[in-house]
């Protein structure tokens, strides 16, 4: 990264350790979801099933695919450290398993991001210890249960 921007890592923004299994799996390039084994409903982040409570929640590997549900392009640096990134695209991805995931969209011009665009996870190695998911246009373009 160029400039003085401090790169945030998951531990900097996590309120506690409940999502730690997700971030640890990212190092192995696995995109986990928190799934209720009673009904199969998938959640992100760590959640409690609205129908079955917490007892049967399990972390399971998801597809890492979905579509852009809504998005914005950021033209103003709300943090001075983000000045070298603008304009950048922020999107809410509706994962194929159902949950929403907030991310930026990389791998295309921010102006090309559109509602309904198929996207998939790409892995960004922030350093030797830290890998985070980002999303990019999906060249296959079709839902894939993987």
């Amino acid at each position, binding site marked *: 990264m160029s400039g003085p921007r401090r790169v945030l890592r998951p531990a900097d923004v996590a309120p506690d350790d409940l999502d730690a299994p997700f971030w640890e799996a990212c190092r192995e390039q696995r995109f986990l979801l928190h799934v209720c084994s009673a009904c199969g409903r998938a959640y992100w982040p760590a959640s409690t099933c609205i129908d079955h409570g917490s007892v049967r929640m399990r972390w399971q590997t998801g597809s890492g695919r979905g579509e852009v549900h809504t998005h*914005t392009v950021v033209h103003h640096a709300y943090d001075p450290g983000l000045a070298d990134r603008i304009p950048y695209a*922020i999107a*809410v991805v509706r994962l194929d398993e159902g949950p929403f995931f*907030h991310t930026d969209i990389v791998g295309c011009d921010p102006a090309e991001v559109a*509602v309904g665009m198929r996207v998939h996870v790409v892995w960004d190695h922030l350093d030797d210890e830290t890998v985070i998911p980002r999303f990019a246009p999906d060249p296959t373009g079709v839902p894939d249960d993987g």
Partner: protein
Amino acid sequence: MSTGAVSGRFAVAGLGVTAQGVRLGRPARDLRRESLELALADAGLTRRDIDGYIGTSSEAFDDIRHLGLAPGFAWTMQSGGATAIWSLLNAIGAILTGQATTVVCVYGAAPTGGRMARADGSRGSFGSFAYGYPRLYGMIGAGMTHALHARRHMHRYGTTSQHLGAVAVAQRAHAAVRPGTIGYGAPITLEEHQASRLVVDPFRLLDCCRDTDGGVAVIVTSVERARDLRSAPAVVLGVGTGHNMRNWWTGEVYDLHDDIAPAAATAFGQAGIDVDDVDVAALYDPFTISVIMQLEAYGFCPEGEGGPFVAAGGTRLDGAIPTNTGGGQLSGFYATGFTAVVEGLRQVRGEGGATQVPDAQVALVSGHGGNGGVQNTWAHATMLLGVDR
């Protein structure tokens, strides 16, 4: 008038509003102190008459010592822009349960000086709150979260930047003739809106409110007691709440602007009136899309038609529903949820000046707040205010 625990039984007896503006150079608690004294004077009450205190600024824990109050309770509430209406609702609840007879709800903040402390201990503007994992990707502030809803509305209904601009222009026209607003004497055109810089697409600079400093105090008591006081009571006809988490679970959260339906149903049900009875609307409006989506959700226009409705003049003084007649947050001042509360009160008190709606009998006030960094806001509140009959 319908029966019920709330409707017609409680009133705002005193309203205190300090100067509202950018870099007033005064500490927040000094603004709260002045707003309290203005409200007491408005009601013809003294400090000793106040037996309940509800603070609505996150830094307000130590307020009552500075304010010189001796209430039976003092609590603080925080649910973003819904807090203002919630504070009045909780004042009513305190009176109903015998905790107090005369409750003051106090707001005062000075964010433009750069020293505002937030609930999490950090300092910064109202517009740069950030939460949780979306921060990893540069997701900061209410502009981005509201833009996600605006984008869906544009996608689903064909709403345009010009429609958003029509909101900004209409509200600036109101503010331009209301002294004490940030838009006073400064009308804008749609061309100026379109020429303003993009901030978070689709929002341009003139689609966004800005922080201002100021204090507001509202004194709540029974209608009977309010009738014996100095100013005419503004009667609380109904209050309702809704929470957007319901729509999160169904996946509709970005297609809706908060969970307005239950909030409206409760408030209108208590009041025993419907949307056609509303003479003036004061809608929480940090961004232009908020007005368009709320006009639809409350039923002032059909779903998806909020943009054309505003562009056709529906929210102007001579329109179907005069809206944000004080300029709103966009062009009036940003006292979080108290911006709309103040304008609703001013309208039913007949104090709207150049933008007073003639014979305004019923005002609808809304508030929403607490975006949590993932969608526009979680909490919504609706309040209907009326003239004492």
